[in-house]
């Protein structure tokens, strides 16, 4: 039986210092300020790419990939520390579609042609990548997706519609799930296809969101011609690859670093906002909310550490991933909603989403410009990547066979 050891390996502290110094040297003030003034959840695509390019100079843009494709060979704990340091320093996110989702699918299942075509470009941050899975009629029930790709010689002709395609308007390519065989059971007819978004027949519409942002898109595909060599792996295996992708990074969906950083921002707001001269951090109502969140977040961090250190888990591993996702998304919401609530009446103001459109507001603290917007859009955290209800269903089924 393994012995429990709660100590962090001391060598990791030296690693943390090394990483921190490097980020400090590399992260531009502009990128940092951009993140601090950002009113959405993930970084602006342009900022994400700029940061990818900077990291790539050190060979750190895709640290978790296998070494042969540009990874660093760091351990799970080293990766954890690296990601935490980046987040704490207000570095932009990287392009998740490339680093966490499509990249791993390509290096695991893709042809040499696709590996060469995409992996170096992803690693360098050449362009942004969109994820084209969901459709208007098929969100939770993704397996019945309808966008069809008909094979004709060495091309596919794609027809259909995707929706909620994050940042599609700013992306050069997308990775799509399409139906290549209408005659077999729903999952079996699905394939994984790389599609260039400026191909004739593609129309993209940005969808205005509740927080003034328009990052989500609709992508219409009308007789779009795609070279057959853009198929990843085998025809009909797309569903398997998609499941691999969604399972691949079990702990990222906890948003642990984002949550820690936003809790720190919540505490900063609690120091600044005052009631009758007393900072909210000493106000019983808000202090209680802060401490409850801190307790939940501490539990989440240790849940993530248990996952990373490969604790033998009594239940199905996917159920563990859903646990992190549920706890993490709940915190994304409660922390940002606490920030909003601490602003009191100031939370009512709708600041423009784009910092460039915001007028000088000397009476208003800087954090008021973004807190409400983030709280609003965080409602999406229990919707994207499998809704809260779907995650609960997974736990009931996989952990308890219900």
């Amino acid at each position, binding site marked *: 039986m393994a012995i429990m050891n709660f100590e962090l390996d001391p060598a990791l502290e030296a690693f943390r210092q090394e990483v921190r110094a490097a980020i400090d040297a590399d992260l531009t003030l502009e990128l940092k300020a951009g993140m601090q003034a950002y009113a959405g959840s993930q970084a602006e695509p342009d900022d994400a790419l700029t940061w990818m390019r900077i990291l790539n100079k050190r060979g750190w843009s895709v640290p978790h990939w296998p070494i042969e494709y540009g990874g660093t060979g760091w351990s799970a704990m080293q990766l954890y520390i690296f990601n935490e340091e980046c987040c704490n320093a207000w570095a932009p996110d990287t392009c998740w579609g490339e680093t966490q989702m499509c990249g791993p699918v390509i290096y695991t299942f893709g042809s040499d042609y696709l590996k060469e075509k995409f992996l170096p470009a992803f690693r360098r941050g050449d362009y942004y990548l969109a994820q084209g899975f*969901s459709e208007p*009629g*098929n*969100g*939770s*029930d993704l397996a*019945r997706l309808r966008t069809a790709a008909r094979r004709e010689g060495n091309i596919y002709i794609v027809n259909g519609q995707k*929706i*909620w395609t994050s940042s599609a308007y700013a992306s050069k390519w997308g990775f799509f799930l399409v139906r290549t065989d209408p005659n077999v059971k729903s999952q079996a007819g699905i394939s994984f296809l790389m599609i260039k978004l400026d191909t004739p027949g593609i129309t993209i519409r940005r*969808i*205005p*969101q*509740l927080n003034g942002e328009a990052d*989500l898109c609709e992508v219409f595909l009308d007789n779009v011609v795609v070279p057959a060599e853009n198929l990843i792996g085998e025809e009909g295996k797309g569903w398997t690859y998609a499941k691999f992708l969604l399972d691949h990074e079990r702990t990222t969906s906890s948003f642990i670093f984002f949550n820690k950083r936003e809790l720190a921002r919540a505490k900063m707001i609690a120091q600044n*906002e*005052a*009631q*009758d001269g007393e900072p909210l951090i000493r*106000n019983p*109502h*808000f202090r209680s909310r802060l401490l409850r969140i801190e307790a939940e977040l501490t539990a989440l961090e240790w849940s993530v550490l248990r996952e990373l250190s490969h604790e033998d888990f009594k239940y199905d591993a996917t159920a563990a991933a859903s646990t992190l996702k549920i706890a993490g998304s709940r915190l994304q919401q409660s922390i940002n909603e606490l920030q*909003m*609530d601490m602003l*009191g*009446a*100031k*939370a*009512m*103001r*709708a*600041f423009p989403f784009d910092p460039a459109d915001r*007028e000088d*507001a000397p*009476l208003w603290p800087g954090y008021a410009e973004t807190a*409400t917007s983030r709280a*609003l*859009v965080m*409602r*999406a955290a*229990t*919707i*994207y990547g499998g*809704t*809260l*209800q779907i995650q*609960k*269903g997974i736990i009931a089924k996989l952990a308890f066979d219900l």
Partner: protein
Amino acid sequence: MDFNLSDLQRMLLDTAERYLAERFTLEHRRALRDTADGLDTEAWSTFAELGWLALAIPEAQGGLGGTMADIAVLGAALGYRCVALPFTSSAVIAPMILAESDAPQGGLLQAIAEGISRVALAHDEPDERYNYSAGRRTMLTDSGSGWTVTGQKMLVLDAPSATHLIVSAGGDDDFTLTLVPADAEGISSSPYPLLNGARAADIVLDEVAGGIPLARGRKARTLLANALDYGRIADAAQMVGSMEADLALCSAYLKERQQFGQPIGKFQALQHIMADMFVATHQARSILYSAIAAAEADEATRSRAVSLARINIAEAHQIVARQAIQLHGGYGITDEYEVSHHYRHQIVLEKLYGDVDFHERRLAAD
């Protein structure tokens, strides 16, 4: 007790439901964002014609002398359609103050009733949080040739479309409420939109002359406290109406949206969410009635009832409006579906004139 509507209230509600459903469509509300001051002038005239702007004005002063219950009936109908016009500020809070003031106001109440004048309350100041008892840094001074007001106000709801402001001023001992024309010399205003499309402004008053002191000292404090509690009830009614709209929108969506080959309303997990929303909304309307019942009671009784109601309704709103988005999946977070509008509208109503913390503290103090 009789919780059924009177014949007059039934007529008021029928008219309101019919007119507001027709006028305040999602497209229309989104189009109002492009107006300079957020005001739908045509609708405001209709509000006047229908008598809604005279509801809170006593009969003796030319109004309809409606009760808090009447105002709440209309408020819920407004909330149901997410109407973010200056109803509470101009047709509830201001008339409550103006009607109780002895100062000559040049027929302002009549002009409010006719939809010609709109009055905003300028109370909040920088670096404070729901402070309705401490003195103001804004000062009212006798310049020899009349009164002047100087100070900085923040978050003056509905100021951009207002014709007049009621400005609170003076320290603990000489608290006053003063009426000033919104376009008076010395007033500079920085307007901005709120989450629900309503407008507010931060306002600098620099030796603004021509103001009419409406009330001073204890009387001014009492008028403000009364008016705010009426405003809180009117806004609570709008929140309840908005939550009731969420119930209707979501139950329809659960029947219409198909996933896994069936309407999502067939999933028991969603049925239970819908049931939780129903319970919260039902309870919210009930506690709204308890606040209405206490509206004419002494200040201590009333403020206690209002604060309890506002806490319960705020918590109900969080359940109802957030789950309404959840039930809509991705569609819920777009600006193109009703539920996100109701969420934002309810957030604004929840944060006006005191949040949960404010009401908890007010209750702890008694």
